[in-house]
């Protein structure tokens, strides 16, 4: 789904933002990217979404093609609450479909189904100001999953939520992914979240961002966030990811 070979990126031609990135995301795979602030995680996501141009001569392919901004293969979910405050929950959930040309009745019907799926039946006409942070991110999840895009790019979608809401939404995301067979590239600061959700966790070093570890997560699916808390493999993988991240800091400081 994503194929990157020895990618280097610099915005000013002097300092590398990303260095020597080799990465492959298979169809149906869920990969989390973790790393310190400013290591280029979001930039990598933006490259895949076509928001940042891939430099000439570099190889980055999404669905075997160079990334195109607005390509229907990709659905992007931002870190912050990005609902439109003037649209109701259902109109927000249908927004992506409408922009991509789905007729209004069909888009609204699909949005309604997704709102119900994320636990917001009865809130269709609510404006974002009437919803909690968690509910707003549920609407954003509904908007993302309403689109049939096979690749989801998620940039710390639960970063601003309280711990309890975060766990609920992680569980919801696991269920949605299991139901709809998407490929997901998920950026996060939260290592426990990365291990709980992903098939692999990619660890990046400080700037220039490079991949310092690719840790497989040996946890079966379907998963439940609550059950993972008592799972030894979860804790061992979490410890391994931490170790790699610390090594990255040591290398950087050294």
């Amino acid at each position, binding site marked *: 789904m994503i194929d990157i070979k020895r990618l280097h990126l610099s915005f000013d031609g002097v300092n590398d933002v990303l260095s020597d990135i080799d990465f492959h995301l298979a169809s149906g795979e869920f990969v989390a990217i973790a790393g310190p602030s400013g290591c280029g995680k979001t930039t990598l996501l933006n490259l895949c*979404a*076509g*928001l940042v141009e891939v430099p000439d001569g570099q190889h980055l392919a999404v669905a075997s093609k160079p990334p195109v*901004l*607005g*390509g*229907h293969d*990709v*659905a*992007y979910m*931002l870190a*912050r609450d*990005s609902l*439109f*405050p*003037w*649209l109701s929950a259902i109109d927000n959930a249908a*927004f*992506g479909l409408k*922009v*991509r040309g789905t007729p209004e009745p069909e888009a609204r019907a699909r949005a309604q189904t997704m709102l119900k799926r994320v636990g917001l039946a009865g809130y269709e006409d609510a*404006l*974002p*100001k009437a919803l909690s942070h968690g509910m707003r991110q549920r609407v954003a999840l509904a908007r993302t999953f309403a689109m049939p895009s096979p690749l989801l790019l998620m940039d710390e979608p639960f970063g601003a939520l309280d711990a309890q809401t975060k766990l609920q939404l992680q569980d919801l995301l696991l269920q949605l992914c299991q139901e709809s067979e998407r490929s997901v590239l998920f950026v996060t600061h939260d290592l426990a979240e990365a291990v709980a959700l992903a098939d692999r966790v990619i660890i990046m070093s400080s700037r220039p961002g490079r991949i310092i570890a690719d840790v497989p997560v040996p946890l079966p699916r379907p998963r439940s966030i609550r059950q993972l808390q008592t799972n030894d493999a979860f804790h061992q993988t979490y410890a391994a990811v931490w170790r790699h991240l610390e090594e990255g800091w040591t290398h950087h400081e050294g």
Partner: protein
Amino acid sequence: MKANLVSTFTKHAAFVVIIVALWEWGARTGVIDQSFVGSPLGIASFTYNNLLNGRLWGDLGWTMLSVKLSFILGSAAAIGVGLVFVTWPKFEAFCDPYVNALNVLPRIAMVPLFILWFGLGVGSKIAMGFSLTFFIVLSSTVAGIRGISQDHVTLTRTLGATSRQLFFWVTLPGAVPVLFSGLRLGLIYAFLGVVGAEVIASERGLGQQLAYLASTFAIDGVWSLLLDLALVGVFLMKVMNWLERRLLHWQ
């Protein structure tokens, strides 16, 4: 809550009645010089006659026509130019010194020129109202569009939105809160500009009637007209508040 409202209203009513009664008493007993400050009964009598003889309605219609046209034309032009500025920032940078110079110029000083160019009719009043409304709405248009959430823009771009979709579905509704505060101020200034120009020289209008009454020492009439102008201002604000509630119910 209701009791509080009644109590507040009673306090204000009592305050106004006391002031008016003192004023009337002062005017009748000669403590206050009526020829300079008028009297409440004189003002009431003038207002009654002005309402009945149709002069008020004619002048009000004349003034409001100028306010309406200067506000609509000024706002439309400002929004158009604002869009051009946001689309081509280099053009905005080029125009910036001229826009600033015109904006800081005391517009009332241009009235003699507007009268020469457009005559004593509504033309010069519209020009005056336009010149004030335009710059206020222009700056709020630019600020409103520049201030829209970049997350909304990013998200919409990743969805593959056309420029038209981005503008009508994201930029415009996102800019409305700031744009609307500019429109509200623009309307007040259109009113101010039109009445100001009418006071200086006009065929008709509330400002012209006010200037005529002041020049003939008809102080009761001046007060009556000032009261009318205040009521028109309040009415204009009520209209804008109503529009704001409709347009920005989501805030």
